[in-house]
């Protein structure tokens, strides 16, 4: 790590907005990465992307009408998560098409409402690409509470989430309410997306769900170790991205995604090397 990045660490704590970004970001990264393992394995990765677009639409409408952003976004995105799950399970529209349909519609509603009210301004740019300046003290409190809910539920139902992810048919046959756990996963993902969206941006937040899980799967072969490794990768990439963003005045969301991309490529190379050595 370059010296200037190391030197930046103590300075992070001198700015209130950066401390807020650090707390919210670490919690959101932890939640997104743990939920991400199941979502990626169940081929639900794009749900995160779809929900972030719904989040953008709801934030845009809330801003246009001067409503509290999170109070509007949380129920709307959670409802969208529920709807997406139902559509992909029972609907005549297949999962990927349902996600594309809902995300494009939400994006269009957001852009339409903004253009007819406040106009395309910095706020909209922040929603799309994220801004750590957008976080308030209330956001931090809400993030801590909701992240704790996500993490406690994940820990309590860890074995059941594993069973439903590995073999939903078997889980149902042995009396595990798979539908309940699928819904819980989707709703917790919705919460995580809304919490992290203003910091990471609607276009980049899904990377926090997908990248750590994929990276850890290159090297880890147990569900437990994949989950732990994904959480560690996510936390480290968040700190690295924030430091880069702070030191080089780069966009925070993009810096965090690039840190994740670097880890993904490194882990891929390491797994190839291990495979080559074995053969």
């Amino acid at each position: 790590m370059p010296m200037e990045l190391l030197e930046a660490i103590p300075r992070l704590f001198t700015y209130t907005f950066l401390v807020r970004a650090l707390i919210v970001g670490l919690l959101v990264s932890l939640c997104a990465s743990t939920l991400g393992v199941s979502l990626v394995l169940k081929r639900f990765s794009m749900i995160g992307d779809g929900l972030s677009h719904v989040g953008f639409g709801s934030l845009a409408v809330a801003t246009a009408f001067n409503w509290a952003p999170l109070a509007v976004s949380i129920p709307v995105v959670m409802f969208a998560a529920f709807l997406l799950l139902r559509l992909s399970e029972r609907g005549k529209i297949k999962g990927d098409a349902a996600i594309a349909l809902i995300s494009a519609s939400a994006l269009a509603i957001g852009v339409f409402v903004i253009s007819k009210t406040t106009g395309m301004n910095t706020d909209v740019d922040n929603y799309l690409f994220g801004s750590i300046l957008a976080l308030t003290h209330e956001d931090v409190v809400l993030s801590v509470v909701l992240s704790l809910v996500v993490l406690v539920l994940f820990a309590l139902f860890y074995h059941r989430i594993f069973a439903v992810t590995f073999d939903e048919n078997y889980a149902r046959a042995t009396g595990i309410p798979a539908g309940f756990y699928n819904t819980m996963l989707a709703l917790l993902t919705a919460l995580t997306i809304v919490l992290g969206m203003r910091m990471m941006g609607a276009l980049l937040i899904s990377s926090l769900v997908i990248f750590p899980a994929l990276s850890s799967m290159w090297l880890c072969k147990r569900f437990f170790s994949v989950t732990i490794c994904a959480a560690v990768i996510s936390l480290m990439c968040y700190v690295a991205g924030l430091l880069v963003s702070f030191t080089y005045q780069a966009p925070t969301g993009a810096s965090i995604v690039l840190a994740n991309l670097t880890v993904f490529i490194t882990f891929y190379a390491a797994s190839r090397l291990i495979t080559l050595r074995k053969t």
Partner: protein
Amino acid sequence: MKHETSLIACKDVGFRYEGQLAVSGITCAVDAGDYLCIVGENGSGKSTLVRGMLGLLKPSEGVITFDAALRSSDIGYLPQQNAIQRGFPASVQEVVLSGRLGRLGLLPLYTRADRAAAHEALKLLGISELAKASFSELSGGQQQRVLLARALCAADDGLKILILDEPMNGLDPHVKQEMYACITSLNEKQGIAVVMVTHDVQTAVKFARHMLVLNGRQEFFGTAHDFEHAAVGADLLRDACGGTCAVCGLPKGTVRQ
């Protein structure tokens, strides 16, 4: 077959999907220690019946009765493998232990008894040494054995019924024979009744005590011996052999006397 002593008995059972009758007229039974193979074309209602036997699907017609002493944990289930599972990052122990979840209640962690049951199941199938191995790195046959161990460890005092949905899919002939031997051993030595959905009529008839043929409705139910002599059985065996049968050694179309 005495239906009043059966573990599972179906009487005129039928299932509907979106208002349309998927399969109907099924009257069959599974007794203690039985070995029933269900055969039929794709979409003939085999897996639907299995879901009914597992209590996951209510019949739209007729009735499925379960022995009063039969608990849901007495029924082990090996579903068809899906694409997600084959490369899934999980250890064998994690997979086998998940068979105990039905007994875990609201507890967030497995107990010592659960771990012991998982160990016993692996031992019974002769794969104890794979406990720490990665599921994704096992061969198809080993993966099926692990899933079989998961089904076995669901019950504390031994399974009564093992329901297998196309367990031989994707396995090479040598591994298939090993799996059949393994399932037959569970049936004969442990006294577990086996219900197996399969496309492999030739091999199924060698091991099964009873055969059930479905094709949107029940075409045959009876002993394996009667199946070989029935017109439907002879047709299915002839289609499967496509010449001199490698299993029974008889020329195409011959019915064993």
